[in-house]
């Protein structure tokens, strides 16, 4: 008697969730399973404690995924409109280069705080502009996002390399403005904090605002959105601009973390971001997906990678495992589509 009533209670709870919420719960379940698995497989430290579960290790994982995680937030929006942004890795490189250049090669007559603010502002501005450029061509001239952002990927990196003559711009450990910038922004709490705050903002943006609704609608059925009076072009433009802005953030943090503006950095980051988004349940065909899912996808990759590294598995195996997760996640989603 009791078991049946509790099972019906469970059933109606499950039914109350929307389809999206159900997907996120399933992904969360998978993440928890992987987490438990990783801690079981974790080697022991010399004092017998579980290395994986050490607070330092767990926060390491968070920090390691934060930069790609921030990029994934923007990528989530883009993919929700059934688009794609291949240029984010290059925008990261450009942003890191610009902020480093403005802090090392420019000596204006102003306080450190002002110079740092301007440097960061300039990096974010140029990143957003790059995204907006892609967005304009995609929205107004109706060119395929893959092609436009591919061109962006190549061109923007070229710009970054040109600005620094293909050299790395090192940020030191001294007392100068660049070192101060790095000291402020490189810490674990700062980087993880940025990720968390941006994730929260964008989660709200997607889930609770008119803009978020428009993004999902455009990805679900662009023509119907047009016929329903939605500002489709504007939505697309904003989405790519936001993607650029977030890649810019990631670039600034990268420069602080690595003490370096590097025009060759971020190669392949766009693929990692896409992987996180896809694993998290957002379909490439657009319309369906959540920020929560993307965060879970990001964490899944981070935990699995850490598990493999702690056990000293060859770093090339990491890539094989990553590929396997992606295929698996997509297969599960495809099956889920019919259940709807």
């Amino acid at each position: 008697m009791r078991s049946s009533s509790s099972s019906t209670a469970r059933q109606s709870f499950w039914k109350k969730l929307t389809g999206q919420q159900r997907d996120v719960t399933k992904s969360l379940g998978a993440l928890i399973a992987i987490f438990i698995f990783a801690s079981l497989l974790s080697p022991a430290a010399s004092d017998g404690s579980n290395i994986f579960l050490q607070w330092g290790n767990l926060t390491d994982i968070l920090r390691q995924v934060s930069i790609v995680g921030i990029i994934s937030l923007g990528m989530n929006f883009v993919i929700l409109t059934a688009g794609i942004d291949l240029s984010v890795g290059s925008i990261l490189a450009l942003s890191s280069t610009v902020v480093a250049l403005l802090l090392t090669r420019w000596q204006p007559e102003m306080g450190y705080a002002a110079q740092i603010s301007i440097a960061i502002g300039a990096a974010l501005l140029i990143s957003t502009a790059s995204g907006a450029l892609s967005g304009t061509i995609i929205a107004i001239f109706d060119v395929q996002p893959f092609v436009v952002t591919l061109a962006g990927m190549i061109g923007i990196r070229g710009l970054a390399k040109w600005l620094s003559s293909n050299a790395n711009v090192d940020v030191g450990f001294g007392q100068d403005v660049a070192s101060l910038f790095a000291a402020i922004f490189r810490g674990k709490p700062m980087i993880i904090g940025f990720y968390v705050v941006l994730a929260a903002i964008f989660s709200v943006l997607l889930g609770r605002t008119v803009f978020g609704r428009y993004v999902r609608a455009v990805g679900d059925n662009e023509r119907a959105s047009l016929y329903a009076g939605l500002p489709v072009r504007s939505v697309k433009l904003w989405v790519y601009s936001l993607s650029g802005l977030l890649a810019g953030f990631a670039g600034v943090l990268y420069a602080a973390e690595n003490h370096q503006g590097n025009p060759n950095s971020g190669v392949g980051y766009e693929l990692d971001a896409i992987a996180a988004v896809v694993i998290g349940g957002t379909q490439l065909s657009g319309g369906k997906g959540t920020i929560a899912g993307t965060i879970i996808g990001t964490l899944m990759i981070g935990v699995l990678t850490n598990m493999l590294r702690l056990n000293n598995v060859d770093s090339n195996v990491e890539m094989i495992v990553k590929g396997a997760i992606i295929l698996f996640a997509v297969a599960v989603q495809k099956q889920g589509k019919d259940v709807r």
Partner: protein
Amino acid sequence: MPETILEMRGVEKRFDGVRAVHEASFSLAAGEVHALMGENGAGKSTLAKIVAGAVSADSGDIFVDGSPVTIRGPRDAQRLGIAMIYQELDLFPHLSVAENLVTGNDKFKEHGFVRPRDMDRFAEPVLRQVGLTCSPRSEVRSLSTGEKQLVSIAHALSMQARIILMDEPTSSLFDDAAERLFQVIAGLKQQGVAIVYVSHKMDEIFRICNRVTVMRDGETVGMRGIREVSPPDLIRMMIGHEWKPREREPVAPSGEVVLSFAGVTTGKLRDVSFELRQGEVVGVAGLLGSGRSEIGRALMGLDRCKRGKVWLRGRLSTIKSVADAFKMRIRWLPEDRKLDGLMMRMSIVENATISDLKRLSSMGFVDRLREREGALSCFQTLSLKSNSVTRAVGTLSGGNQQKVLLSRCLLGKPAILFLDDPTRGIDVGAKEDIYQIIGQLAAQGVGIIFVSSELPELLRFCDRILVMREGSIAADLDAGLTSQEEVLTCATQPPVSEAHA
């Protein structure tokens, strides 16, 4: 007595629970041209597609040359010697004529590498048979529509088809291409090939067909020899003898003119002029492709007016986009609710409110409470019942989906409403609900344009009926005084009708 080459009995087919074909029967003799007639949605294309294997019947018996067969797909049909030429010719535009003939063709026996020479040799005889003089290597997209159609027929012949189904073959042909087609058909008749000719066009049917079968509401209501019957007889069979009483008394035009088209010409429309008054329901009838939906597109700013003007309450319309139209309180229901209307993966409430979110939000954040209230009150008006409003709209039945789209229109408190085939493919109960709301809206003063393929429906509700034909208005009829025959006649016959002369 020529032998029966094809026979069908008791064929059934449902799409999404709606009956497309019911208890249909059909027979075809070798060397005959047999017409298949009926209004839009009567089921004739579906029946033809069942024979061709493009659609599989739910139940029923099909006999070819007297033996029972099952046709599960186009290849089965091909093996039985059946070929179909579709209204939207399914050729590959950037392949050559010969390549088109050869693709998927069981009769072209080549393995591995295929040489152009072999394909030419295969293609030439059938091309000659249909009278095509172009080279087998010419790209299909460089041919005229008439030539493309002949290529389709050649394709059927190259598969050695003995039964050829043609779906509205002359709908996009002009005079001499149609003539060539008829000559080819005459030649095929002599060879004993049987042709099923799906069409609306009376003059053609009386010219080339031996027998005619009429369908109505998915049923085959009768078969006659062509000499035993006249066009009015056929029209009466297509319409049927049921006569629903008028639901609404036509309103005498008294309100102000809210919308007026004056000589509007767009890509598809030609010199369209009409007026819509407050509280009036104007129906739009006509064959598919006659320009009915294009009126809506012109109204909503999706198609540009090359000539002519659109007036809204006496002022020139400045509408350039759908959003502009919404600002002027004009709302519409596109023809294809799945492709053009709904966001399938979003919820019922989200779909209903998507066009009005700005109003239902504050500072960019959606006010979920107000949104829900607004949506639910519309749902109630439309008697839309759903156990959960967070379900994805793709899980609803057709009727309910249509109600969601209507809710979207209603939320905008429109002054003008353009409904494109709102009751297509939905069940009877939902239809009644929709009729009710239309009546209420008209009573409240909303001007409504109602496009439909169902004549009884138009006659029940509309004050006037515009009949479209090939992009222009063939007639502007008073719904209270006209009949289905008249409407259908205007839709199908050229204005100077020789058939009635």
